[in-house]
């Protein structure tokens, strides 16, 4: 067991890569390739379930750590480890992956081999981002997510796919150069890329010239993550990338890649520069709230369903950023929970859109109407997932938003009031869209003959539906490992944060009161 615990993270990270390499030598028979990719992603999921199973709850700090020297000059370590925050992000990634393989089963009919190779490489890179504890290694994986995703959008997307792929690539690439500069600066002063080492060096004030540089370092990391989240003024790549990407690409983009940004904010911007984070919080929160409201309003008027859902991500991720920068236990807990729940709901929404696109090859709302008649099962799934995204109590979206809003109120009432309008907006645009697409008479004759969901499609949706329900009913399953990690992350804030929450309120108490258990 010790051997497994020591190496499980490496296994989870590199299993998909090994699968991709094997796939490269596979004969070009599409069916086998699909089954093989599915097997690899399921195997990775299975391996990753080891993590929550043996994760010691109620304990802060990193677990399942692996640390060995990778390169001596500069001093780069292969250092992996997870805490309660990254634990679930890893599982979210491995959980979405087999579903993405299933959803691409038929919609990817050309260059199938390349597609699944890219998907598996992407999985390795994404998991790597969440488990890397060496800043250099983190940057390494961070950049490595870029190429496969850009290629997936550009090769398998539709419409203005090249424009979308290049825009996505350049936005992220240019922004992350600033992060690299900040990382190198830290290395030059500490002689280490290790997250824990650098963190303690900063806390003890050993780094010469840190206080002058801190703002720039904070911004260096912040720019890279803000583009990825995406935060309000730098979000413009997102709608393009989402609309043109193939379904699996959208699912992973919304489900996992955006979380890399919020995870980075939480881990690095808060973890390394607490003082700067606090100082800059007002304008960051302002941007987050603008994102919540602006994203909703723009979503409301979109004539294209996929673009509409893409803008909801801007809004929902605004909640996450708001929660993180509220610096309250409830807010940050909620932010992490919202990350997971957004991955499930929005991932499912994109999968549903992919299914309808496979049938009609359009995302225009005017092309639909009255779909509930020919496709009742589809409509039911869609309604359920939509409600979870709106934040209906007893479904996953509610818990995250509620906790974030509670945290925001604790930090400053105005934040909570403004952000709470976002909940109303999200009900507006999603319900209105649902009404236009599913209710009424069938307006376009082509829609009369649409097939309802087949077995494969149902199989790929059920796990997400179940996850949405369980996450809404029993959030403590997740929160009891998230909570200690968050309170550890916030520990250094209690000294400097004036907006101290009433410390006695414990998250599980609040949650159980809310859901009445």
């Amino acid at each position, binding site marked *: 067991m010790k051997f497994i615990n020591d190496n499980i993270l490496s296994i989870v990270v590199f299993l998909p890569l090994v699968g991709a390499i094997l796939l490269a030598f596979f004969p070009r028979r599409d069916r086998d390739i699909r089954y093989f990719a599915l097997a690899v992603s399921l195997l990775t999921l299975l391996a990753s379930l080891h993590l929550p199973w043996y994760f010691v709850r109620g304990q802060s700090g990193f677990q399942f750590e692996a640390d060995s020297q*990778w*390169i*001596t*000059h*500069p001093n780069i370590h292969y250092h992996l480890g997870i805490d309660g925050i990254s634990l679930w992000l890893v599982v979210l990634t491995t959980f979405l992956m087999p579903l993405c393989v299933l959803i691409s089963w038929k919609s990817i009919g050309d*260059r199938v081999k*390349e597609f699944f190779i890219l998907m598996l490489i992407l999985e390795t890179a994404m998991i790597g981002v969440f488990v890397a504890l060496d800043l250099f290694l983190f*940057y*390494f*994986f961070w*950049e*490595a997510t*870029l*190429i496969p995703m850009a*290629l997936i959008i*550009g*090769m398998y997307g539709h419409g203005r*796919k*090249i424009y979308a*792929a*290049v825009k996505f*690539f*350049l936005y992220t*690439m*240019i922004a992350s*150069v600033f992060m690299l*500069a900040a990382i*190198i*600066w830290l*290395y*030059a002063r500490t002689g280490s890329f290790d997250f824990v080492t650098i963190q303690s060096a900063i806390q003890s004030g050993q780094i010469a010239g840190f206080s002058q540089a801190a703002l720039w370092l904070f911004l260096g990391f912040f720019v890279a993550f803000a583009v990825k989240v995406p935060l309000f003024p730098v979000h413009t790549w997102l709608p393009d990338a989402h609309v043109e990407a193939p379904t699996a690409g959208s699912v992973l983009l919304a489900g996992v890649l955006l979380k890399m940004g919020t995870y980075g904010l939480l881990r690095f911007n808060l973890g390394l520069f607490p003082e700067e984070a606090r100082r800059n919080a007002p304008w960051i929160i302002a941007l987050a709230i603008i994102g919540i409201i602006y994203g909703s309003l723009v979503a409301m008027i979109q004539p294209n369903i996929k673009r509409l859902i893409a803008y909801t991500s801007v809004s929902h991720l605004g909640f996450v950023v708001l929660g993180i920068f509220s610096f309250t236990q409830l807010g940050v807990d909620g932010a992490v929970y919202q990350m997971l729940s957004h991955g499930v709901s929005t991932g499912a929404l994109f999968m549903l859109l992919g299914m309808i696109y496979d049938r009609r090859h359009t995302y225009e709302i005017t092309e639909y109407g009255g779909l509930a008649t020919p496709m009742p099962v589809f409509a039911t799934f869609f309604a359920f997932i939509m409600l979870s995204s709106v934040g209906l109590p007893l479904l996953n979206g509610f818990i995250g938003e509620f906790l974030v809003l509670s945290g925001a109120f604790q930090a400053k009432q105005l934040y909570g009031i403004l952000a709470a309008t976002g909940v109303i907006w999200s009900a507006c645009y999603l319900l209105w869209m649902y009404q236009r697409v599913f209710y009424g008479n069938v307006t376009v004759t082509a829609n009369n003959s649409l097939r309802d969901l087949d077995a494969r499609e149902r199989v790929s949706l059920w796990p997400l539906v179940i996850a949405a329900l369980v996450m809404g009913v029993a959030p403590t399953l997740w929160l009891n490992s998230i909570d200690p990690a968050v309170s550890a992350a916030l520990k250094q804030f209690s000294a400097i944060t004036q907006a101290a929450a009433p410390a006695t309120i414990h998250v599980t108490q609040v949650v159980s009161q809310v859901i009445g258990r």
Partner: protein
Amino acid sequence: MIPAVDYIRILPELVLSVFGIIVMMIDPLIPAHGSKKPLGIIAIIGILAGLAATAFQTGFYGNAFYNTIRVDTFSVFFHVVVLLIALVVSLTSLEYLEVQRIRSGEYYALVLFGTVGMMLMSAAVELVLIFIALEISSISTYILAGMRRRAAESAEASLKYFLLGSFATAFFLYGVALVFGATGTTNVYGIAQYLQGQSSLVVYLAVGLMFVGLGFKVASAPFHVWTPDVYEGSPAPVVAFMSTGPKAAAFAVLLRVLFATGAPGWFWMVWVSAALSMTLGNIGALVQQNVKRLLAYSSIAHAGYLLVAFAAAQQVGISAAIFYAASYAAMNVGAFAVISHFASTGEKYVTLDDYAGLGRRSPLLAAILTIFLLSLIGIPVTGGFFAKFYVFSAALQSHLVGLTIIGVINSAVAAYYYLRVIVYMYMRDERGDIPVARIPAGLGIGLAISLIATIYLGVLPGRVLDYAMQSAQDLMK
């Protein structure tokens, strides 16, 4: 009496010269219209023998021939780099010459002689010998550039390269003369001794002139204007050769001339040249439609990145420069090997439009080229990433913040045009029917070597970097 060990210290050069002569002697025995492949195979054997000789040399570090040659980790490192470049180029040429119907046996001999010149450049510590080595390598490449005799642009390339090249070497020679006048010696380490604590205006002038001459060889701005035309006209494998081999060797010489001598007054020269090369190279590349021209401009930009490491000066900078030279050689030689295969008879297919849909027609070749291009951008898991990383961190350690910012902005700009090639290959529909021949064995081996080198440097750069640091130390001794 010259001790026998001196001959071991020039053994790789001797081996390659002998094989070059053998190639020349066998060439007339092959009928005029016969295949010249056997000559290529002899050349490849020669290069492998040269590699073995270099490995053998590692037991015999020291000076030779009245302190004109110096075998140390530095020279051995560049020997290996140059020999591997020559190996990949010869492997690529086996097929290329057949396809292009170039029936010149001297091609391989010239590759070997050129390699001898480059190896000698990295081992020589005597300015006059450096000059001779520079000429050996240059003259070989001048002729090689004109090997596509039926194409006017190849003749143009050859002539342009020759005229401007001789002009530039003259500058170098002037510099050498002035150094001799000022210090009374042309030995690098002798100069270093003399220059300790004193310098004169003449020395500043000499360093400037030598920098002009070598700047031409490495294609750094403002001495870069010849590059796009020459690269466009020359045969693709030759471009692979001259965009990496002479460049690496010239950088080796530059390292010796600037650092081992402790010469003064080069800092702002290097700084300006680095900034100009990066900026002009990348801006030029943005608008190119011809892939060879695009990579020509990119090679100017890469010379600029390398010069950033020079400006950083200290040991970290020198080792970063050495590492950069090696990884640039690996990825660029590989990229040109793919291009030369794809160019087809008469180099018809060299524009971006011809690359549209390559990912579908030839998935393997496209994937390999993609890896080289990603390495040129500087994406992790490839050698190009660590190369850039070491260069910029060395620059930061020397507080060259301005130059680092210019460099980082430039690498971001560069991502765009490399990406354009990838976009064409994978995301555009193919235009017409362009046949792609199967990958022949020679090219396959050549590509495998450069691919493994690129990935190895990107995943486990530690050993090569340690060696580069050792070389940097040896260089300064």
